[in-house]
Protein backbone atom coordinates (compact mmCIF):
# COMPACT_ATOMS: atom_id res chain seq x y z
CA UNK A 1 0.00 0.00 0.00
CA UNK A 2 1.50 3.37 -0.98
CA UNK A 3 2.52 5.63 1.84
CA UNK A 4 4.19 8.86 0.84
CA UNK A 5 4.50 9.12 -2.88
CA UNK A 6 6.31 12.06 -4.35
CA UNK A 7 5.15 12.10 -7.93
CA UNK A 8 2.09 10.33 -9.09
CA UNK A 9 -1.10 10.65 -11.05
CA UNK A 10 -4.12 11.88 -9.11
CA UNK A 11 -7.46 10.79 -10.49
CA UNK A 12 -9.89 13.70 -11.00
CA UNK A 13 -12.72 14.36 -13.38
CA UNK A 14 -11.43 17.49 -15.10
CA UNK A 15 -10.98 18.90 -18.55
CA UNK A 16 -7.21 18.80 -18.26
CA UNK A 17 -7.24 15.15 -17.19
CA UNK A 18 -9.32 14.31 -20.25
CA UNK A 19 -6.97 15.93 -22.76
CA UNK A 20 -4.83 13.66 -24.87
CA UNK A 21 -1.42 13.17 -23.21
CA UNK A 22 0.24 14.38 -26.41
CA UNK A 23 -1.62 17.67 -26.16
CA UNK A 24 -0.36 18.15 -22.64
CA UNK A 25 3.13 17.05 -23.61
CA UNK A 26 3.25 19.58 -26.46
CA UNK A 27 2.07 22.33 -24.15
CA UNK A 28 4.66 21.32 -21.55
CA UNK A 29 7.46 21.46 -24.11
CA UNK A 30 6.26 24.92 -25.24
CA UNK A 31 6.27 26.15 -21.64
CA UNK A 32 9.76 24.79 -21.01
CA UNK A 33 11.13 26.49 -24.13
CA UNK A 34 9.38 29.73 -23.14
CA UNK A 35 10.85 29.49 -19.65
CA UNK A 36 14.31 29.61 -21.19
CA UNK A 37 13.51 32.55 -23.47
CA UNK A 38 11.65 34.74 -20.97
CA UNK A 39 13.21 36.90 -18.29
CA UNK A 40 12.44 36.53 -14.57
CA UNK A 41 9.47 38.91 -14.51
CA UNK A 42 7.73 37.28 -17.46
CA UNK A 43 8.51 33.88 -16.04
CA UNK A 44 6.71 34.89 -12.86
CA UNK A 45 3.68 35.80 -14.95
CA UNK A 46 3.92 32.39 -16.62
CA UNK A 47 4.16 30.88 -13.16
CA UNK A 48 1.02 32.73 -12.06
CA UNK A 49 -0.89 31.19 -14.98
CA UNK A 50 -0.62 27.81 -13.26
CA UNK A 51 -3.25 29.02 -10.77
CA UNK A 52 -6.25 28.89 -13.16
CA UNK A 53 -4.88 25.68 -14.71
CA UNK A 54 -4.59 23.88 -11.39
CA UNK A 55 -8.05 25.16 -10.51
CA UNK A 56 -9.49 23.72 -13.71
CA UNK A 57 -7.70 20.41 -13.09
CA UNK A 58 -9.26 20.28 -9.59
CA UNK A 59 -5.88 19.69 -7.99
CA UNK A 60 -5.75 22.91 -5.95
CA UNK A 61 -2.53 22.84 -3.92
CA UNK A 62 -1.03 19.53 -5.03
CA UNK A 63 0.88 21.22 -7.84
CA UNK A 64 2.60 23.54 -5.40
CA UNK A 65 3.66 20.98 -2.83
CA UNK A 66 6.99 20.11 -4.51
CA UNK A 67 8.06 23.76 -4.34
CA UNK A 68 9.31 23.21 -0.80
CA UNK A 69 12.04 20.94 -2.21
CA UNK A 70 13.11 23.78 -4.49
CA UNK A 71 13.50 26.23 -1.60
CA UNK A 72 16.82 24.71 -0.56
CA UNK A 73 18.11 24.99 -4.13
CA UNK A 74 16.97 28.62 -4.26
CA UNK A 75 18.76 29.40 -1.00
CA UNK A 76 21.99 27.91 -2.34
CA UNK A 77 21.60 29.63 -5.70
CA UNK A 78 21.03 33.08 -4.22
CA UNK A 79 23.85 32.88 -1.69
CA UNK A 80 26.47 31.50 -4.06
CA UNK A 81 25.59 33.68 -7.05
CA UNK A 82 25.06 36.75 -4.85
CA UNK A 83 28.56 36.41 -3.43
CA UNK A 84 30.62 34.89 -6.23
CA UNK A 85 28.93 35.67 -9.57
CA UNK A 86 31.86 35.97 -12.03
CA UNK A 87 30.66 39.15 -13.77
CA UNK A 88 29.94 41.10 -10.59
CA UNK A 89 30.09 44.88 -10.98
CA UNK A 90 27.51 46.63 -8.81
CA UNK A 91 27.53 46.13 -5.05
CA UNK A 92 23.98 45.82 -3.76
CA UNK A 93 24.57 45.49 -0.04
CA UNK A 94 27.51 45.16 2.29
CA UNK A 95 26.94 43.03 5.34
CA UNK A 96 27.63 45.35 8.34
CA UNK A 97 30.98 45.00 10.14
CA UNK A 98 32.36 42.72 7.42
CA UNK A 99 33.61 43.26 3.93
CA UNK A 100 31.25 40.67 2.47
CA UNK A 101 29.44 42.18 -0.49
CA UNK A 102 26.31 40.96 -2.17
CA UNK A 103 26.36 41.73 -5.89
CA UNK A 104 23.41 42.91 -7.93
CA UNK A 105 24.31 40.92 -11.06
CA UNK A 106 24.55 37.70 -9.07
CA UNK A 107 21.13 38.23 -7.51
CA UNK A 108 19.57 38.94 -10.91
CA UNK A 109 21.17 35.83 -12.35
CA UNK A 110 19.94 33.70 -9.45
CA UNK A 111 16.45 35.17 -9.87
CA UNK A 112 16.45 34.26 -13.55
CA UNK A 113 17.38 30.66 -12.91
CA UNK A 114 15.01 30.31 -9.96
CA UNK A 115 12.07 31.64 -11.96
CA UNK A 116 12.85 29.16 -14.76
CA UNK A 117 13.11 26.24 -12.35
CA UNK A 118 9.89 27.28 -10.67
CA UNK A 119 7.97 27.38 -13.96
CA UNK A 120 9.34 24.07 -15.22
CA UNK A 121 8.70 22.37 -11.93
CA UNK A 122 5.06 23.35 -11.49
CA UNK A 123 4.10 22.72 -15.11
CA UNK A 124 5.98 19.43 -15.06
CA UNK A 125 4.03 18.43 -11.99
CA UNK A 126 0.75 19.54 -13.49
CA UNK A 127 1.54 17.20 -16.40
CA UNK A 128 2.48 14.24 -14.21
CA UNK A 129 -0.43 14.72 -11.80
CA UNK A 130 -3.04 14.90 -14.56
CA UNK A 131 -1.71 12.24 -16.94
CA UNK A 132 -2.06 8.53 -16.28
CA UNK A 133 1.32 6.96 -17.14
CA UNK A 134 -0.45 4.20 -19.05
CA UNK A 135 -2.22 6.77 -21.24
CA UNK A 136 1.03 8.58 -21.93
CA UNK A 137 2.70 5.39 -23.09
CA UNK A 138 -0.35 4.52 -25.16
CA UNK A 139 -0.37 7.88 -26.87
CA UNK A 140 3.35 7.72 -27.58
CA UNK A 141 2.90 4.27 -29.08
CA UNK A 142 0.29 5.63 -31.46
CA UNK A 143 3.10 7.83 -32.74
CA UNK A 144 4.83 4.54 -33.65
CA UNK A 145 7.12 4.57 -30.66
CA UNK A 146 8.31 0.97 -30.04
CA UNK A 147 6.43 -0.92 -27.33
CA UNK A 148 9.61 -1.60 -25.38
CA UNK A 149 10.54 2.07 -25.23
CA UNK A 150 7.03 2.68 -23.93
CA UNK A 151 7.61 0.20 -21.15
CA UNK A 152 10.88 1.88 -20.23
CA UNK A 153 9.09 5.24 -19.93
CA UNK A 154 6.35 3.68 -17.85
CA UNK A 155 8.64 1.79 -15.50
CA UNK A 156 10.82 4.85 -14.96
CA UNK A 157 7.74 6.73 -13.78
CA UNK A 158 7.12 3.92 -11.30
CA UNK A 159 10.65 3.70 -10.02
CA UNK A 160 10.77 6.80 -7.85
CA UNK A 161 7.80 6.02 -5.61
CA UNK A 162 8.82 2.38 -5.42
CA UNK A 163 12.37 3.19 -4.31
CA UNK A 164 11.00 5.66 -1.82
CA UNK A 165 8.76 3.00 -0.33
CA UNK A 166 11.65 0.56 -0.15
CA UNK A 167 13.78 3.08 1.70
CA UNK A 168 11.00 3.64 4.22
CA UNK A 169 10.56 -0.07 4.76
CA UNK A 170 14.26 -0.57 5.39
CA UNK A 171 14.33 2.36 7.80
CA UNK A 172 11.44 0.78 9.70
CA UNK A 173 13.40 -2.47 9.86
CA UNK A 174 16.46 -0.62 11.14
CA UNK A 175 14.52 1.32 13.76
CA UNK A 176 12.95 -1.91 14.95
CA UNK A 177 16.42 -3.15 15.67
CA UNK A 178 17.61 -0.23 17.69
CA UNK A 179 18.97 2.21 15.11
CA UNK A 180 18.27 5.71 16.37
CA UNK A 181 17.64 8.07 13.46
CA UNK A 182 15.65 10.70 15.32
CA UNK A 183 16.38 14.37 14.87
CA UNK A 184 19.96 14.50 13.76
CA UNK A 185 20.44 14.91 10.01
CA UNK A 186 24.01 13.58 10.05
CA UNK A 187 22.86 10.47 11.89
CA UNK A 188 20.08 10.02 9.41
CA UNK A 189 22.43 10.35 6.45
CA UNK A 190 24.75 7.83 8.01
CA UNK A 191 21.83 5.43 8.28
CA UNK A 192 20.98 5.97 4.60
CA UNK A 193 24.46 5.35 3.18
CA UNK A 194 24.70 1.62 4.04
CA UNK A 195 21.27 1.27 2.42
CA UNK A 196 22.50 2.08 -1.05
CA UNK A 197 24.15 -1.30 -1.60
CA UNK A 198 21.18 -3.49 -0.66
CA UNK A 199 18.80 -1.09 -2.38
CA UNK A 200 20.75 -1.36 -5.62
CA UNK A 201 21.09 -5.14 -5.44
CA UNK A 202 17.42 -5.41 -4.56
CA UNK A 203 16.44 -3.28 -7.56
CA UNK A 204 18.51 -5.36 -9.95
CA UNK A 205 17.03 -8.54 -8.56
CA UNK A 206 13.54 -7.08 -8.88
CA UNK A 207 14.24 -6.08 -12.46
CA UNK A 208 15.37 -9.60 -13.31
CA UNK A 209 12.26 -11.06 -11.74
CA UNK A 210 10.03 -8.54 -13.47
CA UNK A 211 11.59 -9.45 -16.81
CA UNK A 212 10.65 -13.06 -16.26
CA UNK A 213 7.15 -12.09 -15.17
CA UNK A 214 6.77 -9.99 -18.33
CA UNK A 215 8.08 -12.71 -20.61
CA UNK A 216 5.79 -15.22 -18.98
CA UNK A 217 2.98 -12.98 -20.19
CA UNK A 218 4.23 -12.69 -23.78
CA UNK A 219 5.84 -9.28 -23.51
CA UNK A 220 8.08 -9.83 -26.56
CA UNK A 221 5.43 -11.56 -28.66
CA UNK A 222 5.63 -10.52 -32.29
CA UNK A 223 2.13 -9.24 -32.82
CA UNK A 224 0.01 -6.12 -32.67
CA UNK A 225 -0.51 -5.07 -29.04
CA UNK A 226 -3.83 -3.79 -27.84
CA UNK A 227 -4.40 -1.79 -24.72
CA UNK A 228 -6.98 -1.76 -21.98
CA UNK A 229 -6.84 2.01 -21.59
CA UNK A 230 -7.99 4.06 -24.54
CA UNK A 231 -6.67 7.46 -25.45
CA UNK A 232 -8.60 9.59 -27.90
CA UNK A 233 -7.33 12.49 -29.92
CA UNK A 234 -10.27 14.88 -30.16
CA UNK A 235 -10.81 17.99 -32.20
CA UNK A 236 -10.25 20.13 -29.11
CA UNK A 237 -6.85 18.50 -28.69
CA UNK A 238 -5.91 19.62 -32.17
CA UNK A 239 -7.19 23.14 -31.49
CA UNK A 240 -5.39 23.42 -28.17
CA UNK A 241 -2.11 22.26 -29.71
CA UNK A 242 -2.40 24.80 -32.55
CA UNK A 243 -3.34 27.59 -30.15
CA UNK A 244 -0.54 26.81 -27.69
CA UNK A 245 2.10 26.66 -30.39
CA UNK A 246 0.94 29.92 -32.01
CA UNK A 247 0.75 31.76 -28.68
CA UNK A 248 4.13 30.43 -27.55
CA UNK A 249 5.85 31.37 -30.80
CA UNK A 250 4.32 34.85 -30.70
CA UNK A 251 5.27 35.44 -27.07
CA UNK A 252 8.73 34.00 -27.68
CA UNK A 253 9.39 36.16 -30.72
CA UNK A 254 7.99 39.30 -29.07
CA UNK A 255 10.17 38.92 -25.99
CA UNK A 256 13.13 38.20 -28.26
CA UNK A 257 12.60 41.47 -30.15
CA UNK A 258 12.06 43.68 -27.10
Amino acid at each position, binding site marked *: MPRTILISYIERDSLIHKLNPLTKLTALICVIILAFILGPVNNLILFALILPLSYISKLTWDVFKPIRYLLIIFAILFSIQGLFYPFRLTPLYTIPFTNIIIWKEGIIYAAEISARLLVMMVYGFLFVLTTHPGDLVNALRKLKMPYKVGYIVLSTLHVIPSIQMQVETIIDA*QKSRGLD*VSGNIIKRLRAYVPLLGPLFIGSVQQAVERTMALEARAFSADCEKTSFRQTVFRKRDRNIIIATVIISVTVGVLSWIY
Partner: protein
Amino acid sequence: MTPIIKVNNLMFSYPNGVVALRNINLEINKGEIVAIIGHNGSGKTTLVKTFNGLLKPTSGEVLINGVSTKNENTAKLSKIVGYVFQNPDDQIFNNSVYNEVAFGPGNLNLKKEEINKRVLNALEIVGLEKDKKMHTLDLSLNKKKLVTIASIIAMNPEVIILDEPSSGQDHEGTVKIEALIKELQKNHTVIIISHDMNLVSKVASRVIVMWDSNLIFDGDKRTAFMNSDLLKKTDVSPPIITQLAQKIKGFRKDILTADEFIDEIIKLKK
Protein backbone atom coordinates in the same frame (compact mmCIF):
# COMPACT_ATOMS: atom_id res chain seq x y z
CA MET B 1 2.57 -5.82 38.83
CA THR B 2 2.39 -3.54 35.80
CA PRO B 3 1.57 -5.41 32.63
CA ILE B 4 4.38 -5.39 30.09
CA ILE B 5 1.96 -4.11 27.42
CA LYS B 6 -1.18 -2.16 28.19
CA VAL B 7 -3.42 -0.68 25.53
CA ASN B 8 -6.07 1.90 26.39
CA ASN B 9 -8.81 2.95 23.95
CA LEU B 10 -6.37 2.70 21.08
CA MET B 11 -7.47 4.04 17.74
CA PHE B 12 -5.25 4.19 14.70
CA SER B 13 -5.79 5.46 11.17
CA TYR B 14 -3.25 5.50 8.34
CA PRO B 15 -2.41 8.81 6.63
CA ASN B 16 -4.61 7.84 3.67
CA GLY B 17 -7.61 7.70 6.00
CA VAL B 18 -7.97 3.93 6.45
CA VAL B 19 -9.06 3.32 10.04
CA ALA B 20 -7.12 0.17 10.95
CA LEU B 21 -7.79 0.00 14.71
CA ARG B 22 -10.88 1.00 16.69
CA ASN B 23 -11.15 1.29 20.42
CA ILE B 24 -8.72 -1.48 21.38
CA ASN B 25 -8.17 -2.36 25.05
CA LEU B 26 -5.88 -5.14 26.24
CA GLU B 27 -3.19 -6.12 28.70
CA ILE B 28 -0.35 -8.56 28.22
CA ASN B 29 1.64 -9.76 31.21
CA LYS B 30 5.18 -10.99 31.52
CA GLY B 31 5.65 -14.62 30.47
CA GLU B 32 2.38 -14.91 28.58
CA ILE B 33 2.14 -16.42 25.14
CA VAL B 34 -0.63 -14.79 23.16
CA ALA B 35 -1.90 -15.48 19.66
CA ILE B 36 -3.56 -12.78 17.59
CA ILE B 37 -5.81 -14.15 14.87
CA GLY B 38 -8.23 -12.62 12.37
CA HIS B 39 -8.91 -12.32 8.66
CA ASN B 40 -6.60 -10.55 6.19
CA GLY B 41 -6.64 -6.82 6.71
CA SER B 42 -8.31 -7.03 10.13
CA GLY B 43 -5.55 -4.95 11.74
CA LYS B 44 -3.25 -7.50 13.36
CA THR B 45 -0.02 -6.17 11.94
CA THR B 46 -1.07 -2.59 12.59
CA LEU B 47 -1.82 -3.47 16.23
CA VAL B 48 1.58 -4.99 16.95
CA LYS B 49 3.39 -2.19 15.13
CA THR B 50 2.01 0.16 17.78
CA PHE B 51 3.72 -1.97 20.45
CA ASN B 52 7.23 -1.01 19.35
CA GLY B 53 6.37 2.52 18.32
CA LEU B 54 6.62 2.04 14.56
CA LEU B 55 3.08 3.39 14.56
CA LYS B 56 1.86 5.93 17.13
CA PRO B 57 -1.76 5.93 18.34
CA THR B 58 -4.07 8.35 16.56
CA SER B 59 -5.89 8.46 19.88
CA GLY B 60 -5.71 6.44 23.08
CA GLU B 61 -2.41 5.08 24.34
CA VAL B 62 -0.03 2.14 24.39
CA LEU B 63 1.99 1.64 27.57
CA ILE B 64 5.14 -0.46 27.57
CA ASN B 65 6.17 -1.32 31.14
CA GLY B 66 3.92 1.53 32.20
CA VAL B 67 5.47 4.14 29.88
CA SER B 68 3.50 5.61 26.98
CA THR B 69 5.00 5.04 23.53
CA LYS B 70 3.97 8.55 22.57
CA ASN B 71 7.28 10.19 23.36
CA GLU B 72 9.50 7.15 22.90
CA ASN B 73 11.17 6.24 19.66
CA THR B 74 11.26 2.80 18.11
CA ALA B 75 15.02 2.50 18.58
CA LYS B 76 14.56 2.71 22.34
CA LEU B 77 11.45 0.55 22.49
CA SER B 78 13.15 -2.13 20.41
CA LYS B 79 15.20 -3.03 23.47
CA ILE B 80 12.00 -4.15 25.18
CA VAL B 81 9.75 -5.15 22.28
CA GLY B 82 11.26 -7.08 19.38
CA TYR B 83 9.15 -7.28 16.24
CA VAL B 84 9.77 -9.88 13.54
CA PHE B 85 8.26 -8.54 10.30
CA GLN B 86 5.54 -10.43 8.45
CA ASN B 87 7.47 -10.32 5.19
CA PRO B 88 11.17 -11.22 5.61
CA ASP B 89 12.06 -9.14 2.56
CA ASP B 90 10.84 -6.06 4.43
CA GLN B 91 13.24 -6.76 7.25
CA ILE B 92 16.43 -8.14 5.72
CA PHE B 93 18.75 -5.48 4.30
CA ASN B 94 22.28 -6.71 5.02
CA ASN B 95 24.40 -8.80 2.69
CA SER B 96 25.40 -11.72 4.88
CA VAL B 97 23.37 -13.67 7.40
CA TYR B 98 25.92 -12.85 10.07
CA ASN B 99 25.74 -9.10 9.46
CA GLU B 100 21.97 -9.18 9.39
CA VAL B 101 21.79 -10.79 12.82
CA ALA B 102 24.59 -8.58 14.17
CA PHE B 103 22.83 -5.34 13.17
CA GLY B 104 20.53 -5.25 16.21
CA PRO B 105 23.09 -6.03 18.92
CA GLY B 106 25.41 -3.57 17.14
CA ASN B 107 23.02 -0.80 18.18
CA LEU B 108 22.99 -1.82 21.84
CA ASN B 109 26.40 -0.44 22.73
CA LEU B 110 27.90 -3.88 23.39
CA LYS B 111 31.48 -5.11 23.15
CA LYS B 112 32.53 -6.87 19.96
CA GLU B 113 32.94 -10.24 21.66
CA GLU B 114 29.51 -9.93 23.25
CA ILE B 115 27.93 -9.15 19.86
CA ASN B 116 29.69 -12.13 18.31
CA LYS B 117 28.53 -14.37 21.14
CA ARG B 118 24.94 -13.23 20.79
CA VAL B 119 24.90 -13.66 17.02
CA LEU B 120 26.29 -17.20 17.17
CA ASN B 121 23.91 -18.08 19.97
CA ALA B 122 20.88 -16.74 18.07
CA LEU B 123 21.90 -18.57 14.91
CA GLU B 124 22.26 -21.75 16.92
CA ILE B 125 18.80 -21.40 18.44
CA VAL B 126 17.19 -21.16 14.99
CA GLY B 127 19.55 -23.76 13.54
CA LEU B 128 21.41 -21.62 11.03
CA GLU B 129 25.00 -21.85 12.37
CA LYS B 130 26.15 -23.31 9.08
CA ASP B 131 24.63 -20.54 6.98
CA LYS B 132 26.19 -17.55 8.71
CA LYS B 133 28.28 -16.61 5.68
CA MET B 134 25.46 -17.02 3.16
CA HIS B 135 24.26 -14.03 1.17
CA THR B 136 20.79 -13.12 2.38
CA LEU B 137 19.44 -12.99 -1.18
CA ASP B 138 20.35 -16.63 -1.73
CA LEU B 139 18.33 -17.92 1.21
CA SER B 140 15.13 -19.90 0.83
CA LEU B 141 11.98 -18.31 2.24
CA ASN B 142 12.15 -20.76 5.16
CA LYS B 143 15.59 -19.65 6.12
CA LYS B 144 14.88 -15.97 5.54
CA LYS B 145 12.16 -16.20 8.17
CA LEU B 146 14.56 -17.90 10.57
CA VAL B 147 17.16 -15.19 9.98
CA THR B 148 14.63 -12.50 10.85
CA ILE B 149 13.75 -14.34 14.04
CA ALA B 150 17.43 -14.80 14.95
CA SER B 151 18.07 -11.11 14.41
CA ILE B 152 15.50 -10.30 17.08
CA ILE B 153 16.63 -13.05 19.47
CA ALA B 154 20.13 -11.58 19.33
CA MET B 155 18.79 -8.35 20.83
CA ASN B 156 17.27 -10.26 23.74
CA PRO B 157 14.12 -8.13 24.18
CA GLU B 158 11.54 -8.93 26.87
CA VAL B 159 8.77 -9.34 24.33
CA ILE B 160 9.13 -11.09 20.98
CA ILE B 161 6.42 -10.56 18.38
CA LEU B 162 6.29 -13.00 15.49
CA ASP B 163 4.13 -11.85 12.57
CA GLU B 164 2.94 -14.99 10.77
CA PRO B 165 5.97 -17.12 11.63
CA SER B 166 4.73 -20.18 9.75
CA SER B 167 3.58 -18.53 6.53
CA GLY B 168 5.50 -19.88 3.56
CA GLN B 169 6.96 -22.70 5.63
CA ASP B 170 6.72 -26.34 4.59
CA HIS B 171 5.73 -28.99 7.12
CA GLU B 172 9.26 -29.41 8.43
CA GLY B 173 9.63 -25.65 8.73
CA THR B 174 6.37 -25.37 10.66
CA VAL B 175 7.42 -28.08 13.10
CA LYS B 176 10.69 -26.27 13.62
CA ILE B 177 8.96 -22.94 14.21
CA GLU B 178 6.66 -24.58 16.73
CA ALA B 179 9.61 -25.93 18.70
CA LEU B 180 11.34 -22.56 18.41
CA ILE B 181 8.37 -20.70 19.86
CA LYS B 182 8.23 -23.09 22.81
CA GLU B 183 11.92 -22.45 23.37
CA LEU B 184 11.49 -18.67 23.22
CA GLN B 185 8.63 -18.86 25.67
CA LYS B 186 11.04 -19.88 28.43
CA ASN B 187 12.72 -16.49 28.56
CA HIS B 188 10.37 -14.13 26.77
CA THR B 189 6.82 -12.94 26.53
CA VAL B 190 5.74 -14.12 23.09
CA ILE B 191 3.07 -12.73 20.79
CA ILE B 192 2.33 -14.56 17.57
CA ILE B 193 0.10 -13.54 14.69
CA SER B 194 -1.05 -16.55 12.74
CA HIS B 195 -3.62 -18.02 10.40
CA ASP B 196 -2.43 -21.51 11.33
CA MET B 197 -4.81 -22.77 14.03
CA ASN B 198 -2.80 -25.94 14.55
CA LEU B 199 0.16 -23.82 15.52
CA VAL B 200 -1.98 -21.51 17.65
CA SER B 201 -3.61 -24.38 19.53
CA LYS B 202 -0.24 -25.95 20.23
CA VAL B 203 1.77 -22.98 21.45
CA ALA B 204 -0.60 -20.30 22.71
CA SER B 205 -2.79 -20.25 25.77
CA ARG B 206 -4.61 -17.02 25.14
CA VAL B 207 -6.19 -15.92 21.87
CA ILE B 208 -7.06 -12.40 20.72
CA VAL B 209 -9.40 -12.19 17.75
CA MET B 210 -9.39 -9.16 15.47
CA TRP B 211 -12.25 -8.47 13.10
CA ASP B 212 -12.55 -5.46 10.85
CA SER B 213 -10.29 -3.19 12.95
CA ASN B 214 -11.98 -4.27 16.21
CA LEU B 215 -10.91 -6.61 18.96
CA ILE B 216 -13.88 -8.97 19.26
CA PHE B 217 -12.52 -11.69 21.54
CA ASP B 218 -9.81 -11.96 24.15
CA GLY B 219 -9.59 -15.08 26.24
CA ASP B 220 -8.78 -18.73 26.59
CA LYS B 221 -8.06 -20.59 23.35
CA ARG B 222 -10.52 -23.41 24.16
CA THR B 223 -13.35 -20.95 24.58
CA ALA B 224 -12.39 -19.38 21.27
CA PHE B 225 -12.31 -22.65 19.36
CA MET B 226 -15.70 -23.70 20.76
CA ASN B 227 -17.34 -20.47 19.63
CA SER B 228 -18.34 -21.38 16.09
CA ASP B 229 -19.99 -18.00 15.36
CA LEU B 230 -16.79 -16.23 16.29
CA LEU B 231 -14.72 -18.49 14.08
CA LYS B 232 -17.07 -18.21 11.13
CA LYS B 233 -16.94 -14.45 11.37
CA THR B 234 -13.16 -14.37 11.29
CA ASP B 235 -12.88 -16.96 8.56
CA VAL B 236 -10.76 -19.46 10.47
CA SER B 237 -11.44 -23.08 11.21
CA PRO B 238 -10.31 -24.74 14.44
CA PRO B 239 -7.63 -27.45 14.27
CA ILE B 240 -8.76 -30.57 12.35
CA ILE B 241 -8.86 -32.66 15.50
CA THR B 242 -11.15 -30.14 17.18
CA GLN B 243 -13.45 -30.09 14.16
CA LEU B 244 -13.60 -33.87 14.20
CA ALA B 245 -14.36 -34.02 17.92
CA GLN B 246 -17.09 -31.41 17.49
CA LYS B 247 -18.82 -33.68 14.96
CA ILE B 248 -18.88 -36.72 17.27
CA LYS B 249 -21.87 -37.07 19.59
CA GLY B 250 -20.95 -37.18 23.26
CA PHE B 251 -17.46 -35.78 22.78
CA ARG B 252 -16.21 -32.68 24.51
CA LYS B 253 -16.24 -29.76 22.10
CA ASP B 254 -12.98 -28.21 23.22
CA ILE B 255 -10.52 -30.93 22.32
CA LEU B 256 -7.25 -29.63 21.00
CA THR B 257 -4.75 -32.50 20.99
CA ALA B 258 -4.57 -36.13 19.95
CA ASP B 259 -4.08 -37.16 23.58
CA GLU B 260 -7.27 -35.45 24.68
CA PHE B 261 -9.07 -37.12 21.80
CA ILE B 262 -7.91 -40.55 22.87
CA ASP B 263 -8.94 -39.83 26.47
CA GLU B 264 -12.45 -39.05 25.21
CA ILE B 265 -12.63 -42.33 23.30
CA ILE B 266 -11.58 -44.27 26.38
CA LYS B 267 -14.09 -42.41 28.55
CA LEU B 268 -16.92 -43.08 26.10
CA LYS B 269 -16.11 -46.79 25.89
CA LYS B 270 -16.57 -47.25 29.59
